[in-house]
C-alpha cells in the first residue's frame, strides 16, 4: 500500500531547523550530553515550577513519578524537541505527529515510575517510550512507505565522515559503534530503526534475503545493547571494541 495524500510528502516538508538533542540528566556528569544546558532552566523561567527548583542536572522522571508538577512540565521542555522529531519522522504528517506527541507525553508522565537508570539514560528511555507509541500507530494505520520515500532514504545513507566523538553518552556510544558495523548492517539498522521500514521492505530494496536483513539488525542491536550494559557496569568504552 502506498502512502496517500500528505503521507506522500517528502521527509523535508515542514521540518523546522535542527536543534541539538536534549541535555542528558540524571547521571554523573561524565555521562551527560554535551549540548546546550539551558533546556530545563527555560522551564523554570516559564513559571512551571511549583516545587523545588529544577536544575539541568536533575533527573526528571523520578520526580514526575512522585507527582512533582514542576518536573511534569520540565519533561516537556527537556524532551519536547526529541519527541517531536521522532513523531514527525515516523508519521510524515504534521497533524498526526501532533496527535502522537500529545499521546506520548501523557504516556511518559504516566509511566515515569518505570524508568530505571541502571538500564538506560533518561533520554534513551524517553525515546523508547515514544518509539513504542509510534510503532503502534504505524501498525494501526497499516501504512507503508512509498518506493520513492525509501529510495530517498537509501540515497542519503552516507553519513558525513570524520565526526569527532569524544564524550561518552549512550547515543554517542551507539553512534561510534554504528560506524564500526559493516556497511550493510549499518544500513539495515538505519532503515529499520530510523525510518521505520519493515524488514521485508528493506530486504526488497537492498536486494538481500529477509533472513540476512533480520540478522544484520539483530546483531547491530545486540552490539549496542552490549555496549550499553558494559557502560552501565563501568566497563565504559571497552565494550565498543
Amino acid at each position, binding site marked *: 500500500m502506498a502512502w496517500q495524500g500528505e503521507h506522500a510528502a517528502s521527509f523535508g516538508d515542514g521540518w523546522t531547523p535542527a536543534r541539538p538533542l536534549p541535555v542528558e540528566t540524571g547521571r554523573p556528569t561524565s555521562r551527560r550530553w554535551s549540548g546546550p544546558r539551558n533546556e530545563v532552566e527555560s522551564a523554570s523561567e516559564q513559571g512551571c515550577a511549583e516545587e523545588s527548583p529544577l536544575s539541568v542536572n536533575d533527573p526528571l522522571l523520578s520526580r514526575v513519578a512522585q507527582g512533582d508538577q514542576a518536573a511534569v512540565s520540565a519533561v516537556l521542555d527537556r524532551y519536547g524537541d526529541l519527541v517531536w*522529531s521522532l513523531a514527525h519522522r515516523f508519521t510524515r504528517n504534521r497533524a498526526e505527529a501532533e496527535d502522537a506527541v500529545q499521546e506520548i507525553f501523557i504516556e511518559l508522565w504516566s509511566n515515569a515510575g518505570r524508568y530505571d537508570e541502571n538500564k538506560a539514560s533518561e533520554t534513551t528511555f524517553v525515546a523508547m517510550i515514544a518509539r513504542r507509541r509510534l510503532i503502534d500507530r504505524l501498525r494501526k494505520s497499516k501504512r507503508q512507505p512509498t518506493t520513492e520515500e525509501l529510495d530517498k532514504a537509501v540515497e542519503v545513507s552516507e553519513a558525513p565522515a570524520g565526526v569527532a566523538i569524544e564524550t561518552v553518552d549512550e547515543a554517542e556510544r551507539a553512534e561510534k559503534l554504528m560506524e564500526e558495523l559493516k556497511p550493510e548492517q549499518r544500513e539495515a539498522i538505519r532503515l529499520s530503526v530510523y525510518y521505520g521500514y519493515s524488514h521485508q521492505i528493506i530486504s526488497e530494496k537492498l536486494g538481500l534475503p529477509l533472513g540476512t536483513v533480520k540478522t544484520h539488525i539483530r546483531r547491530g542491536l545486540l552490539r549496542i545493547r552490549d555496549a550499553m550494559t558494559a557502560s552501565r557496569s563501568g566497563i565504559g568504552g571497552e565494550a565498543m571494541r
Partner: protein
Amino acid sequence: MNRDRLLDLMTARATEGLDSDELRELDPMLAAQDEFIEEELELAAAAADLAIQRRAGGAEALPSDLRAKVMAQSAEFVSRAKPAATPDVVPFPGKDAGEGRGDKGFNPMTWLGWAVAAALALAFVPWPIGGPDQPTGTPTEVVEDLPPTAAEERQFLLDQASDVITVAWAPPTVEGYEGVTGDVVWSNAEQRGFMRLSGLPAIADSDDQYQLWIVDPEVDKHPVDGGVFDMPAGAGEAIIPIDSKLAVDSPAVFAITREKKGGVVVSAGPLLVIAAVEA
C-alpha cells in the same frame, strides 16, 4: 527455549512491532530465561535512533503552538493525578510493561467463551446502533486553553463521524457489576471510540486495572487489546477513550476484564461488562 527465535521476536518488537500471536509467543519465552531483559533491545534501538538523529542534524524544535497544547495537557494531567481532584471524567492512563507492544489477545481457548458471551448478550439486549442522534453523554464545558476533555471528544466524534455506532453495555451478570451502565461509541473511519461507564467498581488504589477487549473477527482471530484504565473511587460517570492496538474494521463485541496493572496479553476473564454490536 529457542534463543534464536527469542532474539528474532525481540528484534522485531524493537523495530516493527509484533502481532498478537507473536506477543503470545514472546512473553513466556522471556519469562523462561534470564539472559535478556525485557525491553533491552528496544532501548538499544532507541539509542541507535538517537545516534542517527545526531548525525542527521539533531532534534527539530517542537512547534510553539504544540508546546502550548502539551503544557496545558500537563496541567490537566497533574490536576487529575491528585486524588482530591479526581474528576467524573477520568483520564486514560498509560500502561506499564505491556505498553506499545502491539495488539494483545485472549488465549484461543477462551474464544468460545467470547462467542457465547456475545450471543447471550445479544439475546437479552436490544442493541441500538446509533448515529449522531444517539445519547450524547455528559454535558461538556469548554475550558479555555485546555485540550478537550474525553466527554468533549466523544461528543465531537458523535457529531462528526458519519459511521459512528453507539452500543449499550448489556446488563452485567457478574456479582458486583450488576449496576454498571453506559455505552460504547466507535467510528471505524476515525478509528476512535469512547466508553461511557457508570457504576463500575473503583479499583484505582489496587494493583489491578480494567482492560478493554475488542472482538473483530475480520482483523484477528483473537480479541484486540483496547487499552487499560483505572476507575477512581467516587467517580460518577467515566468517559474513557478506547486505545485499540490494531485497526478495527468491524467490531463485534466490546468487553471489559479486570487484570493486573498494565494489562495482560492472555486473559482468563471473566468478562465483567459486555457490549455486543448487532450484526
